[in-house]
């Protein structure tokens, strides 16, 4: 079991309120991603749940029991750190065994669980090495191994992939998702990368300055962003946002159109502009259109075969049904 409830959880460092009172429920077995820009308080929130920081106010319930004052060890949660935080003086085997040793698990049972974890994570041939002799990806797997052997009620990940190179990152992302499918244990995953959030999460929590901007499934956030911040943060490339006359036409302060919901044409359309930079990925092409009078540039996603040249005059037409409208407070209309 691993249901986690935050009730009015608040964190202050001295005078600075990093997390204003916050409520959130994470259901058992869910894969929840906290996403937000750097410095918005994601790590702090995770560390409050872990018990590595004390809350300034509010309560943390784990499986309905108040765990606010429980030590990290007694919460039954496991954490994977960005720096891996392996014990450098212990072999991989000893690293993975450490939580079992602390829990007083018998030696044969320890060995059984270590073998199983090592097999699942492709670490069997590295068990007798030191962390210093492993690559970044292997170290990350050891850190995950150390977390899974103790069979925690929830896993906490703090940007676990940010020290890996791009190719490894995609591979590890899949491994973690598979791990979740297999174990069905609650996972809370912190990242500043919205692509990681979109691809892995059952539920995304978008944070800004310690406040929750929106909670929802990846598709929810993509289709119905609650405000301008979420609209701009979720989706890659970013949603085009503009205000002024173009927005007023739709009875809104600000409107947003995703690059994939704009048609580009050389013949005619709603907004006129000039092609600036274009990126051809094969499957898709991205055009950055300038001089539209609406915004600095408008990003348009088109079919891979579309070829336009720098300086070409083009016409843009938004898909009327997919325009997002926001009021003066930035909230969705």
């Amino acid at each position, binding site marked *: 079991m691993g249901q986690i409830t935050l009730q009015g959880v608040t964190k202050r460092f001295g005078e600075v309120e990093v997390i204003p009172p916050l409520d959130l429920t994470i259901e058992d077995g869910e894969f929840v991603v906290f996403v937000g820009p750097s410095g918005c308080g994601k790590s702090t929130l995770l560390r409050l749940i*872990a018990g*590595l920081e004390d809350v300034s106010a509010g309560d943390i319930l784990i499986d309905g029991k108040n765990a606010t004052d429980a*030590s*990290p*060890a007694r919460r039954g*949660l*496991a*954490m994977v*750190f*960005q*720096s891996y*935080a*392996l*014990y*450098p*003086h212990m072999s991989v085997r000893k690293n993975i065994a*450490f*939580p079992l040793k*602390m*829990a007083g698990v018998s030696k044969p049972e320890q060995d059984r669980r270590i073998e199983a974890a090592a097999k699942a994570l492709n670490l069997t041939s590295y068990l007798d090495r030191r962390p210093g002799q492993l690559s970044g990806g292997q170290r990350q797997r050891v850190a995950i191994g*150390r977390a899974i052997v*103790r069979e925690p009620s929830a896993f906490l990940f703090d940007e676990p992939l940010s020290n890996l190179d791009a190719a490894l990152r995609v591979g590890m992302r899949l491994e973690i998702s598979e791990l979740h499918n297999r174990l069905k244990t609650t996972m809370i995953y912190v990242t500043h990368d919205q692509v990681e959030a979109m691809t892995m999460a059952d539920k995304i929590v978008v944070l800004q300055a310690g406040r929750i901007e929106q909670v929802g499934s990846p598709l929810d956030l993509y289709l119905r962003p609650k405000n301008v911040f979420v609209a701009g943060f979720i989706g890659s490339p970013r949603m085009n946002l503009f205000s002024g006359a173009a927005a007023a036409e739709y009875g809104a302060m600000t409107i947003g159109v995703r690059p994939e919901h704009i048609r580009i044409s050389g013949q005619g359309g709603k907004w006129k502009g000039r092609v600036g930079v274009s990126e051809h990925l094969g499957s898709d092409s991205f055009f950055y259109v300038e001089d539209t009078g609406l915004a600095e540039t408008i990003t348009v996603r088109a079919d891979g075969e579309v070829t336009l040249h720098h300086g070409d005059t083009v016409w843009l037409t938004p898909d009327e049904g997919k325009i997002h409208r926001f009021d003066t407070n930035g909230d969705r209309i």
Partner: protein
Amino acid sequence: MARAVSRNTKIGWTIAAWAVALLIFFPILYTIITSLKSEQEAIAGFDLIPSFTLESYQTVQSQNNYWRPFTNSVILAVGSTLLALIVAIPAAWAMAFSPTKRTKDILMWMLSTKMMPAVAVLVPIYLIFLRTGLMDTRIGLTVLLMMINLPIVVWMLYTYFREIPGEILEAARMDGATLRDEILYVLTPMAIPGIASTLLLNIILAWNEAFWTIQLTTTNAAPLSAFIASFSSPQGLFWAKLSAASVMAIAPILVLGWFSQKQLVRGLTFGAVK
């Protein structure tokens, strides 16, 4: 980035490096050479080939028993170092793991005491030693040497402890370690290399300390530094014997240094070399 260095430049630098190293080592080398000469050879003038006689060593040993100052040196160096570690480990620990606003100031203040010339406090300390009967005692000198080297010991340990990443301690806490487990299984093994380097370096510093040991001892507690000094004043002209005494005084520490080179380099560079 690798820079292209011509062969000649490389040879030039190698020769220069050897020249500087030899220049620095030469006084020690010449002391060893002189110690293997007879007194007549020693005063005869500059000569790199001794007659390899051991007579100076025999005379030094028969006139002045070597083993008593040797024992004192060991007791003072090891004793003061262990005492310093007992005081400095908790101090450095607290400053590295729970620093306050004033931690940096305290560290600077401790270091500043090393900027004052020792002579400045010679009279008060001399008087304290005289009045309390600590003059020429091992215990008095051990405590004094401990206090003299304490700032450096605290600084070194502080630097090492700060290198231990906090996330590893947090990981141990998440893994269910109690404070005792954390200290026993995680902190101590990670801190031991740093403590060992500090211990070695401080033993050498204490061994070579000459100002206080010469001022505050006569015979009972006199270590090897005072042993050399006792040869330089009354018998200043007997260079071979003085050299032999010097070699006997520095030999143990040279051997120790030789065998612990790796630890020492780490110690002297304050952990900058990984």
